[in-house]
């Protein structure tokens, strides 16, 4: 069974807002091994033109994954998560996430298609502040191996 193409175009309502904290940003920067002070030190972030410490470019995936978990778990989608690998990832940024941001993530399934024996699903996740300011949009392609059988 393949991923259900009837889900193309479906948008999932955002969950509770996510609050970006300094501690989490420093923890994430440590985990990726990036010593850049703009992720930890407010003075360094201010010198670079930011109101507070910022997030590394890939940090929005943490917020996106939490939001897309709801979509991927929808039984009607028929996605076999055990067979899923990450195919592509892209971000478009209006600005970096900054400590203190309170944001929501809205996931839309933009495409579901077959490629040989695999099923590919592309989602876009729009991350914006609770005030409605766009921060970034993440485009994610998942590959379900053997999903088209």
């Amino acid at each position: 069974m393949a991923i259900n193409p009837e889900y193309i175009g479906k948008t999932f309502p955002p969950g509770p807002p996510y609050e970006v904290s300094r501690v989490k940003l420093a923890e994430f920067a440590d985990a990726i091994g990036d010593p850049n002070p703009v992720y930890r030190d407010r003075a360094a972030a201010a010198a670079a033109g930011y109101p507070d410490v910022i997030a590394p470019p890939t940090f929005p995936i943490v917020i996106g994954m939490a939001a897309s978990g709801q979509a991927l778990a929808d039984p009607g989608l028929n996605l076999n998560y055990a067979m899923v690998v990450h195919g592509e990832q892209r971000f478009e940024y209006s600005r970096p996430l900054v400590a203190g941001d309170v944001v929501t993530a809205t996931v839309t399934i933009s495409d579901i298609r077959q490629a040989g024996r695999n099923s590919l699903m592309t989602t876009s996740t729009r991350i914006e502040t609770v005030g409605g300011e766009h921060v970034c949009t993440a485009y994610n392609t998942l590959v379900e191996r053997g999903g088209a059988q």
Partner: protein
Amino acid sequence: MSDQVSYDEVETGAQIPAASYPVTRLSLVRYCGASGDFNVIHWNERIARSVGLPNVIAHGMFTMAQAGRFVTDWAGPGARVVEFGVRFSAPVVVPDDETGAAITVSGEVTEKLDDHRVVLALTARSADTKVLTRARAVVRLP
């Protein structure tokens, strides 16, 4: 961290020297915790092998993060990343030893756009295998 790069100084075709980033089993455990992605193939060798992988593999997003660091280190603190995308072409295999694996990233300035933006094409390899393809960043420089 490098010195600040300016748009006017950058030339199309400029090569960005390669940098190598280590990844060990401990790196992956920390990334699981920080990212919330606890997929067992990133920490359990028995299960990784049982689903046909050669060993535990790094999170694709860990590899992408190393490429992101490469971009921001080159561009400097005054730059802004506008767009960043990759395709994951092969896994980074991380053995259970002291050294783990290495992810080597290099890049080239392929285009200068308007509004002080430049396009970087990135290459990432681990153990001589290309682990990212179509890796590209658009950065706005001062």
